[in-house]
C-alpha cells in the first residue's frame, strides 16, 4: 500500500497480526490498566481526534486555522447548556453541538476563507478569542463562573447508563469517536474524490479551479466538517469533565496543541496526528510521572518543536517513512550554517 498507512506495514511479520494486536489492546486497555490509565487513554484518544480535526483544514486543505479550539469550546458549551441549563439528556446536547458548530462555522467560513496564509491564521485566532470573551460575559454559559453539568446517571439512547461518568464508559466513547474520525478521514481524504479535491486546492488553487473544482465550496465544506468534529469531541469532553469554564474549554492552548500535534506528527497525513497527538499529550501528561513535579517539560516541548521544524519539516511520520534521512539533516545543517553571517 502506498502512502497513508505506513507505520504498521513496516514492522516485521504479517501486518494483520499487528493490526489485530492493536485492536485488542485498544479494546482491552481500560480493563487491563484501570481507571487512571483509562483516563490517560481517553485523553490521548480525544487529542488524536482533535489533532485530526485540525489536520483536515490545516493539513489537508492547507488553511492555518488558529481558532479551531473555539469549536471544541462551542461543542462543550452547547452540550453543557443543554444539560445544565435545560436539563436535556446528553444526546440532545450532542445534537445541539453538531447543529450549532455547523451554523457558526459556516457563517465564519464565508467571509474568513477569503483570506489566506497568516491573514487567515490571525483572523481565526481573533474570532476564537471573541468567542471566549463572549462566553465569559454571557449568562447562559455561566459566564465567569462556568457551568457545572448534572452528574446524575444519564441515559444513552433511552437505556440508562449505569456508569455515567465512569472512565471506562468515556474511554469507549472516545475510542469510538476517535476511530470514527480516523475512518472518516481515511475515507474522505485518502480514498474519496472529495479528499483529492481538498488536496488539489491546497497544492494549486488555480489548477483546481481549472479542473472544475469549486474551491470556495470545497474549502467551506472542509472547514465546517473539521469544526463539527472538534465540537463533537468538545461535547463529550464536557459530559465527561462535568465542569466547564471558558478559560478552560475555550483556551487558546487547545488550538495550539492541535496545531503542534498535527505538525510534529506530519501535516496532511492520516497517521501524523496520531503520532503527534500521542507524543505531545503523553509528554505533557506523563511528565509529572517521569520527570517529577517540574515544569521542565515546557522548554522540552519548545525545543522539540524547534528541532522538528528545523530538521524534519515533514514531521515524525516523515521520519518513519524515511523521507528525512541523515543526508537531509546534514544538508540542513550546512545550509543553516551558511546563514550565520553576522560579522
Amino acid at each position: 500500500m502506498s502512502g497513508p498507512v505506513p507505520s504498521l506495514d513496516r514492522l516485521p511479520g504479517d501486518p494483520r497480526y499487528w493490526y489485530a494486536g492493536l485492536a485488542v489492546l485498544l479494546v482491552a486497555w481500560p480493563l487491563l490498566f484501570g481507571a487512571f490509565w483509562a483516563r490517560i487513554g481517553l485523553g490521548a484518544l480525544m487529542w488524536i481526534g482533535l489533532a485530526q480535526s485540525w489536520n483536515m483544514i490545516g493539513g489537508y486543505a492547507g488553511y492555518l486555522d488558529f481558532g479551531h479550539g473555539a469549536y471544541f469550546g462551542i461543542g462543550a458549551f452547547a452540550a453543557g447548556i443543554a444539560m445544565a441549563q435545560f436539563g436535556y439528556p446528553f444526546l440532545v446536547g450532542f445534537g445541539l453541538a453538531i447543529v450549532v458548530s455547523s451554523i457558526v462555522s459556516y457563517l465564519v467560513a464565508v467571509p474568513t476563507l477569503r483570506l489566506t496564509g497568516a491573514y487567515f491564521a490571525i483572523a481565526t485566532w481573533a474570532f476564537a478569542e471573541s468567542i471566549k470573551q463572549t462566553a465569559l460575559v454571557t449568562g447562559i454559559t455561566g459566564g465567569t463562573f462556568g457551568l457545572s453539568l448534572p452528574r446524575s446517571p444519564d441515559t444513552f439512547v433511552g437505556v440508562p447508563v449505569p456508569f455515567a461518568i465512569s472512565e471506562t464508559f468515556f474511554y469507549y466513547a472516545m475510542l469510538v469517536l476517535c476511530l470514527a474520525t480516523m475512518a472518516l478521514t481515511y475515507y474522505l481524504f485518502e480514498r474519496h474524490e472529495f479528499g483529492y479535491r481538498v488536496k488539489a486546492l491546497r497544492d494549486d488553487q488555480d489548477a483546481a479551479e481549472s479542473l472544475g473544482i469549486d474551491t470556495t465550496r470545497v474549502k467551506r465544506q472542509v472547514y465546517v466538517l473539521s469544526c463539527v468534529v472538534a465540537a463533537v469531541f468538545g461535547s463529550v469532553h464536557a459530559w465527561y469533565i462535568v465542569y466547564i469554564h471558558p478559560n478552560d474549554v475555550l483556551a487558546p492552548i487547545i488550538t495550539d496543541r492541535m496545531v503542534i500535534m498535527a505538525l510534529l506528527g506530519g501535516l496532511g497525513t492520516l497517521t501524523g496526528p496520531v503520532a503527534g497527538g500521542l507524543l505531545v499529550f503523553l509528554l505533557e501528561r506523563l511528565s509529572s510521572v517521569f520527570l517529577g513535579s517540574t515544569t521542565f517539560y515546557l522548554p522540552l516541548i519548545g525545543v522539540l518543536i524547534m528541532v522538528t521544524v528545523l530538521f524534519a519539516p515533514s514531521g515524525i511520520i516523515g521520519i518513519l517513512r524515511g523521507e528525512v534521512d541523515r543526508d537531509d539533516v546534514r544538508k540542513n545543517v550546512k545550509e543553516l550554517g551558511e546563514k550565520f553571517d553576522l560579522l
Partner: protein
Amino acid sequence: MVDIGLFTQIVINGLLLGGIYITIGVGFSLAFGVLEVVDFAVGEYVMVGAFMGAVLAPVFGAEGIFVIPIVLVVFFLAGSLIQPLIHHVTTGDRPHPLLMGLVFTFGLATFLRGSVLTIFGPNNQDVPSSLLTGGVTVPGVGTFPVVRTVTAVFGVTGLLVFMYYLYRTRGGMAIRAIAEDRTNARLMGININRYQSIAYGAYAALTGSAGVFIGMIFTANPGMGLQYTAFAFFMVVLAGMGYLPGVILAGIVLGLTQSFTAVYISGNLVLLVLFAIIYVVLLVSPAGILGKGEWAT
C-alpha cells in the same frame, strides 16, 4: 453626561497605553516587513526583558532603567543568532514556509516561557525603579504617570530611531532593499544574512527593553508574554503589515479604544471589542486601517 476631567484623563491613559503598545509594535512590524516573520515569540521577549530587569536591577542600585543598555546588547546578540534559524525554516523548498515560521517561533515562545517558569518559579517579580514613580498632574488636564510617559516616549523614540536608521543610513537602506527584493539586494553586494540578522536583533533589543519598562509599569511574571503577543498582532493588523509609520496610529487607536471601552462601556467587554475589531479589520481591510500594509505571502 461626560465629565471633562475624567474624559481628558481617559484620553491620556489611552495615549500612554498606546505608547506601551508602540514599543512592542515597532520591532514586530519591522520584523514582519523585512523578514516576513510572524513572530509568536514577541511577547516572550517582553517577558524575558522584564525578568532581566527584575534580576539585574538590584545590581544597579534597584534602578531598572540602568538595566536597559545590557538588555539592548544581550537581546541584540540573541536576536541576531535566532534570526538565521527563522530564515532557514521560512525559505528553501519546504512545504508551508509561513506555517513553519509561525510554528518555529511558537516553539521558541514555549521554550522561553517554560525556561523562565522553571528557573524563577511563578511568582511576580518587581522591576524596581525609584526614578520613575508617581505622576505629574497638569491642572485642568489630568495626571501623567511618569513611568508610562517615559515608556511611551521610549516607544516613540524607538520608532524614530528605527525610522532614522532605515531611512537615513546605509544599513537601513540595505534592509529596505532586502525587504523589497532579496535577490536584487544580493546583486548590489548586500550580505542579506547579515542585515537580516541585524534587523531581527534590533527588533529583539527594542522588544526586550520594552519588557523592562513593562515590568516597571506592571510586574514581571512568566505568564505575561501571551497578552503582549496578542497586542503585537493587534498592532500590525491595524497598522498594516510591515508599515512602520502606521504603528503610531495603531497604538493610539488601540489605547484609546481600550480606555474608552473600559470606562464608558464595560471593562469586561474590552477584549471582546478589541478582538472583534481585529477580526473585522482583517475581513474588510487586510492591509490595515490606513490600507498601506504589505503582506508577502
